[in-house]
Every structure is written in C-alpha cells, then in structure tokens.
C-alpha cells in the first residue's frame, strides 16, 4: 500500500505500486469520483512557474472534489521576505492534507518530505525528478500498447539532461524494454544509465539518426533539443533538423506505434504530425490528470 507516503523520486515506488497507480488512473478516467476528496485541501506550492503541471494537479484535485490553495511562483510567497523552505513547509502543513511542490533547486521535495508529517508529491525539483510525469508516461504507454512488457522505446533528443527520459528509463527497466537512443554526441544518454541497462542485461542501441530502428519502435519518445546545451552553435545548427519529426518519417512504422512528448514542444515535432493517429502527446497530457488523481487518492489512503 502507498498510503500516507510521499512521492519524491520514481524509485520510491516498486513495480507493483506503478501498476496499482495505473489501475487507479484507469478507474478515475472512467469515473472521476468527485466526492472522494471532500473536505480535503491540497496545497500546490510552485516556487517556479509551470503552468501545465500545476493546472494538471489542480484539475485532478478539483475533479476529486477537493480544494486547492497555494501559489504559482515564489514571488507571490514569503520566500521574497527571506523565509526558509523549512519554515514555508512547516507553516503550509498546518493548512492542508497534502503538498504538491515544484522548486528550481534539486532535493527540495525530499527535504520537504522530511520536515512535515503530511505527504509531499514532487512536481519537479530542478533537473532531478518529476515522478508524476513518468507515471503518466507509463499510463500512456500501457493504454496505447495494452501492456508495458517487452516493448521497444525510441528516445530522441536531449538524452543527457532530460530528466523525463532518465526517469522513464529507470521505470521501464522493470518491464524488459529494448531502448534505442537517438541523440547528437553532445547529448548522449549518460554512462550511468547505460551501465545500469548492461547490468540488467537489457538491449539498447545508440545512434545519431532514426535509421531502420524506427520500424521496430512501439513508442517514439521525443524531447526538446535545447540550443543552450551546445558548446558549439554550429554543431547545434547541423543537428537540430535531424530531430524534427515529420509525418512522412512515420511511414513504415508499426500501426500501433505512438509518438509521446512531455511537452512543451518547440519545433521537434512538426505540426503535420498532429493529425496522425500515431500522435499521442496531447492525450498524454490529458492522462496526466487521471494519473495525478490516482496518486493523490492513493497517497491520502482514500483508494
């Protein structure tokens, strides 16, 4: 059971707990159960702006019949008066049943979970963790593929700094996944993750372009290649177009294949992909609401 337990890192949950959340998310998708969070207050503390994640959490709470308090950036909190995170968490804990927190510094959610008795859900701490994104990715994969086992996932773009691909990789290692990593040399998957896959005996390939492997993929997980990550701007200009997914490039891919993206996209998925039945990123964002309903209800011991 996950009752009354903070969700800070994707590795806090076991495979069984992932599957339980996905099953609950499916229940909430069919029936939002608006009375479940009656008399419960959830604080959304966003020390940096993140419109999509915050609205998704707030939508999840409101659909469950709960109430939301909080702030959407630190300039509207006592942080501007010099209040420590410790004090903010202690004080807010008096006003709510659960804290959802986004912070630009890494490790803040773990720290918060240790200074309060109420559960904390990490909605992103710097470049470290964003576990609810990973759970909604798992839900999207399961929904579209009918299973999480033995799939082939192609991860494309910024594999070096992208926390979403790292967390997804860690979670999917539980399901005998084959990975294809597509990135420029400067943004390759860090060695520690490849080492981990080697230790588990899981297959992966690394390449600079989509190549023939695109035909094997069950999921293409696109991420944004960030210009500011490149030390050589010419290298960026040379490689950026290799990662603009166009509808034509989906020719010959599996009928069941889906394109996912944690969003926001800039230009790495051409708008001509949007009309393809293989484009799934907007529904993926919708799935986030059901998954967050499941996480909140589960952590509060209501499900």
């Amino acid at each position, binding site marked *: 059971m996950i009752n009354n337990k903070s969700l800070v*890192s994707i590795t806090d949950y076991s495979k069984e707990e992932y599957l339980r959340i996905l099953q609950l998310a499916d229940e909430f998708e069919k029936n939002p159960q608006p009375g479940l969070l009656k008399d419960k207050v959830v604080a959304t503390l966003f020390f940096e702006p993140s419109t999509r994640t915050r609205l998704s959490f707030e939508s999840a709470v409101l659909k469950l019949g709960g109430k939301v308090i909080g702030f959407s950036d630190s300039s509207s909190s006592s942080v501007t008066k010099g209040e*420590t*995170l*410790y004090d903010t968490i202690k004080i807010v804990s008096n006003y709510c049943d659960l804290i959802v927190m986004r*912070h*630009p*510094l*890494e*490790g*803040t959610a*773990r*720290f918060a979970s240790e200074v309060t008795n109420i559960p904390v859900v990490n909605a992103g*701490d*710097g*470049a*470290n*963790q964003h576990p609810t994104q990973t759970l909604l990715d798992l839900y999207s994969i399961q929904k579209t593929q009918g299973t999480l086992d033995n799939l082939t996932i192609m991860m494309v773009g910024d594999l070096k700094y992208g926390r979403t691909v790292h967390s997804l990789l860690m979670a999917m290692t539980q399901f005998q996944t084959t990975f294809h990593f597509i990135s420029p040399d400067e943004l390759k998957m860090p060695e*520690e993750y490849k080492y981990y896959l080697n230790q588990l005996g899981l297959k992966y390939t690394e390449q600079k372009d989509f190549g023939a492997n695109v035909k094997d993929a069950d999921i293409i997980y696109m991420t944004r290649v960030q210009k500011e990550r490149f030390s050589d701007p010419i290298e960026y200009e040379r490689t950026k177009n290799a990662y603009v997914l166009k509808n034509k490039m989906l020719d010959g891919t599996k009928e069941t294949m889906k394109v996912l993206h944690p969003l926001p996209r800039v230009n790495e998925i051409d708008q001509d992909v949007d009309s393809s039945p293989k484009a799934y990123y907007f529904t993926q964002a919708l799935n986030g609401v059901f998954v967050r309903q499941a996480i909140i209800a589960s952590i509060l011991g209501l499900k």
Partner: protein
Amino acid sequence: MKDKKLEVSAIENGTVIDHIPANVLFKVISILNLDKIDKQITFGTNLISKKLGKKAIIKLSDTFFIDKEINKIALVAPQAKLNIIRDYSVVEKRIVEVPEEIIGIAKCMNPKCITNNERIVTRFQVISKSNVKLKCHYCEKITDQDHIEIV
C-alpha cells in the same frame, strides 16, 4: 655526527592515527573536531612514508574513538591506521572503513542542490567504497572522491 632522531613523544594511553596523507591532515582534524577537545594532541606532518610519499600522524592522549566516529575520516584518508595505546604499548590496531552513510561531513558538489542553498545537514549514501562515490540523499547527484569537500 651523532645520529639524532626527532620524534613526537610517545603517549601513555590514547590513540595514534597513522598513514594520513599529509595534505589532508587538517581535514582530519576538522572532521574529528580535534580543535575542540581538551586532551593533549601532538601531530607531525610531511613525514617520509614509503606508501604515501609524505604522511601525517596524530597522537591523542586519553582519547579513544568508536568505529562510527573514526570511520568518518575514511573519506579523506582511506589508508589511515589506528594504534590503540595502553600503558605505552600498542594493544590494538585498527583500519578505518568507509561507512555506508555520511552525515554532516561532506558537501554536495551540485551547486543546485538544496543543501548548498539552505542550512541543511548534508547526507550521502556511499555507493562506492574503494574509489569513494557519494550519492546525495537530497538531489541524488554523485560526488566523487576528487570533488569531496569537507563542510
């Protein structure tokens, strides 16, 4: 010329910490809070060592450590050896061992870690003991041996 040897004096009871790399002597002093104890301490540094090139040694009168306490120095002096002295004789030899968890000693090398931005006691899980690697309990980033800084 008469062969003269200058040694730090022997102690009657206490602990001798030997084989400390010369360049970390003051880190060891700081980790063990030796600047705050009221017992007699003598130390020597830049002594010739076959193993380390130059080593340091600390002799502490009437001071004994529990493993948990002394093992903290393994972060900076993994080859350190302890001689426990009773009545001028070595009664026990011990080596230090890198502990499983490091609390309040090392600094996380990630500038964006919460521990480098608020007054929080640092905490690491030791994920490699031979070539020390510390995983930050908070930000989950790795600080390796070359980047370990003592708080």
